[in-house]
């Protein structure tokens, strides 16, 4: 018997009643974590499309050195809205979407710890997004960049800036509420017998993510409240004309926003750690290394923020400190990358769309990580700060990392979520177009940055024209690449072939129920017959050996490979009192 069969026969999915819901449920205040997960995933994807349109407008303006497409003021609003939407309405909540859908299933719970709070957290997102976009209609869209540095942000338009602050405050609150839910759920609601070391790695990643959300997002809220006072009430916290100090805003902002880049990548590190072993048919390499490096990243991530401020006039010793801590972060990140490579190494790879995106993730993310270490070096950063080199870096990690990770997650869990398979051919077309488009768009930006082209400027020196033209073409290709996915997803959701419960022969618990899962996830309390990544491990002569995996009277006690009940237990320590003779 394979490990997958072992796990499946331990958890027979009996429910005939599939968790198919009425379409109206998805538009309502529903407390089922699966509905909320889908709400998150679909809503954020819509915002991704909006943010993508804005990106292509930006790139269209940059196709030529002159401002021949939009005015510089409109250009400023375009890149501000693009970045704000992509960060706060796409990548951050998309991670929360996967977490909502997957965590309870992975740990064998029926729902999140606070289902109603969960729904509240979701329903803050659409109003916040609409609020932000409505600023376009008001005619005063925020235009001080996603960083919203004062004093610039205080002089470019009160209404737009106020809308921006409101919207980001709402989104921040939503993600804090989400994080509380994830932490309590993972910590308290695992099935009995699932130790932390038997949790899927995605849960570890979400612990790390939620911890930084909880600790850093409030500081941004504090900064935005003060900024709001400066903007609307005439205080001068960040306004040098009244004795205030804009650098303090930068510290507070980056105290959140550097950890936020890990909020934007750790969940997808987690997804990748799930996807690679399943499709490589090998145990994950270095379970504990991956688990602990997530925690290390989230801790170190809290003490590196000023690497965004090397040119803001901070003292030399501070530059030194932040340069060193920033470079140290590359170590736990590197540990993860090596573990993933070792997981795939020598595996029986199934090169389907999910796996391709996951491997693409590792490849492109490494490029972004390397440019990150370059930027961490103060002498280098002084030259390329605020140039396209930074833009190249952040898009390699955020697009090449987070976005590819999200797509890998879509392809991997689509069968579970919808009960139907995505079309593989169009999935591969999607992958090919994305990976080419992404490198075409962002690779040349490294060169632009080295040549000295500033970011956030609508006009530029004609000598940059050719490379910009290439970038713009790449961005159009990226826009095109989304269509195969959208059409594939809609078509497959309606007519795709039936997926069955466990199409990938995976071992984690979300695959041990029907697809889509029943309303309360599992009919019976699930048990662990294998570890989460025991792929390809032999279990000697299976049928003949009676491995007492379960205690008939108390299955809750019979979980886990370390359970005393797996082998013949020493009667003295037997879990069930009746056996202690």
């Amino acid at each position: 018997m394979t490990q997958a069969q072992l796990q499946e026969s331990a958890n027979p999915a009996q429910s005939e009643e599939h968790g198919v819901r009425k379409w109206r449920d998805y538009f309502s205040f529903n407390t089922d974590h699966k509905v909320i997960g889908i709400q998150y995933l679909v809503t954020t994807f819509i915002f991704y499309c909006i943010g993508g349109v804005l990106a292509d407008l930006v790139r269209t303006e940059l196709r030529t050195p002159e401002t021949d497409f939009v005015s510089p003021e409109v250009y400023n609003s375009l890149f501000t809205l693009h970045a704000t939407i992509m960060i706060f309405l796409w990548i951050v909540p998309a991670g929360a979407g996967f977490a909502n859908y997957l965590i309870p299933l992975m740990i064998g719970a029926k729902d999140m710890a606070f289902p109603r709070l969960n729904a509240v957290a979701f329903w803050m997102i659409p109003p916040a997004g609409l609020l932000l976009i409505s600023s376009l209609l008001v005619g005063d869209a925020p235009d001080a960049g996603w960083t919203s540095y004062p004093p610039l942000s205080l002089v470019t338009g009160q209404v737009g800036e106020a809308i921006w602050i409101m919207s980001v405050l709402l989104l921040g609150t939503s993600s804090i509420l989400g994080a509380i839910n994830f932490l309590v759920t993972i910590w308290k609601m695992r099935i009995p017998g699932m130790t932390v070391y038997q949790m899927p790695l995605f849960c570890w990643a979400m612990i790390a993510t939620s911890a930084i959300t909880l600790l850093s997002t409030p500081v941004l809220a504090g900064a935005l409240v003060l900024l709001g006072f400066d903007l609307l009430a005439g205080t001068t916290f960040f306004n040098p004309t009244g004795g205030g100090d804009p650098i303090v805003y930068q510290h507070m902002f980056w105290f959140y926003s550097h950890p936020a880049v890990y909020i934007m990548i750790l969940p997808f590190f987690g997804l990748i750690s799930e996807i690679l072993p399943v499709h490589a048919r090998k145990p994950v390499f270095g379970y504990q290394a991956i688990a602990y490096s997530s925690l290390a990243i989230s801790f170190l991530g809290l003490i590196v923020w000023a690497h965004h401020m090397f040119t803001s006039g901070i003292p030399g010793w501070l530059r030194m400190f932040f340069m060193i801590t920033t470079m140290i972060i590359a170590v736990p990140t590197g540990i993860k990358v090596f573990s993933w490579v070792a997981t795939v190494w020598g595996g029986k790879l199934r090169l389907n769309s999910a796996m391709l995106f996951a491997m693409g993730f590792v490849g492109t993310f490494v490029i972004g990580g390397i440019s990150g270490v370059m930027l961490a070096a103060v002498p280098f950063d002084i030259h390329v700060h605020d140039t396209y080199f930074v833009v190249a870096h952040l898009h390699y990690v955020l697009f090449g990392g987070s976005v590819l990770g999200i797509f890998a997650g879509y392809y991997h869990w689509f069968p579970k979520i919808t009960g139907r398979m995505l079309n593989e051919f169009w999935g591969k077309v999607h992958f090919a177009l994305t990976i080419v488009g992404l490198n075409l768009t962002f690779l040349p930006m490294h060169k632009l940055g080295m040549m000295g082209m500033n970011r956030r400027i609508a006009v530029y020196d004609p000598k940059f024209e050719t490379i910009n033209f290439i970038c713009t073409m790449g961005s159009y290709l990226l826009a095109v690449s989304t269509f195969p996915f959208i059409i594939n997803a809609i078509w497959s959701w309606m007519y795709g072939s039936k997926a069955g419960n466990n199409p990938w022969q995976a071992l984690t618990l979300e695959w041990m129920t029907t697809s889509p899962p029943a309303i309360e996830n599992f009919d019976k309390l699930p048990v662990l017959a294998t570890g989460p990544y025991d792929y390809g491990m032999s279990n000697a002569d299976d049928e003949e050996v009676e491995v007492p995996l379960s205690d008939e009277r108390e299955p809750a006690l019979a979980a886990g490979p370390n359970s005393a009940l797996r082998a013949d237990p020493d009667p003295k320590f037997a879990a069930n009192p009746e056996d202690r003779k």
Partner: protein
Amino acid sequence: MQSQTIDPAKTALNYHHTEAEAHHEEHPDHRITGLIMFLVAEGMIFFGMFGAYLAFRSVLPSWPPEGTPELELLLPGVNTIILISSSFVIHNADTAIKKNDVPRMRTWLAITAAMGAIFLAGQLYEYSNLEFGLTTNLFASAFYVLTGFHGLHVFIGLVAILAVLWRSRVSGHYSNEKHFGVEAAEIYWHFVDVVWIVLFGLLYIL
């Protein structure tokens, strides 16, 4: 797929699951854990603002800036004592409900609420007598925003206590086994108290 080809009954592994039916009745209560995490987040907002305050302090040549009128210490001092003692008072409410003594709990909560209200009134009185306004200078702004933000929290705590009082009219709503509301209000009140101590130290004493 695979799961259909294997009949669980015929494998070596024969599982009998317990129904997880008891789930709904004894849904374990994680709300206190959740509340504590929420307060960690709240604490970080204050942490950020206090950090900003200290940064302004260290950047400006003199603090408070030249010409800021002196702060009166007597009223806020008394207020501080009232708020801190109210933390002990509300703890008595918690002890009472753990002994299933609802009337006593109500008394202690009512006293706490009164003390909270006195604190807020005192703060408003202080505001009305100060010689600087929100935009006078950086110190003044920080003073009003920080104390105001804290006062908002006191107000929320007060509302929470009153809500518990209101609900406890129904006999049996709270008991020695079921008293999340009382406990939550108490924890929140302690939090507001601790924040005030730091705030008082920063604004009035440092």
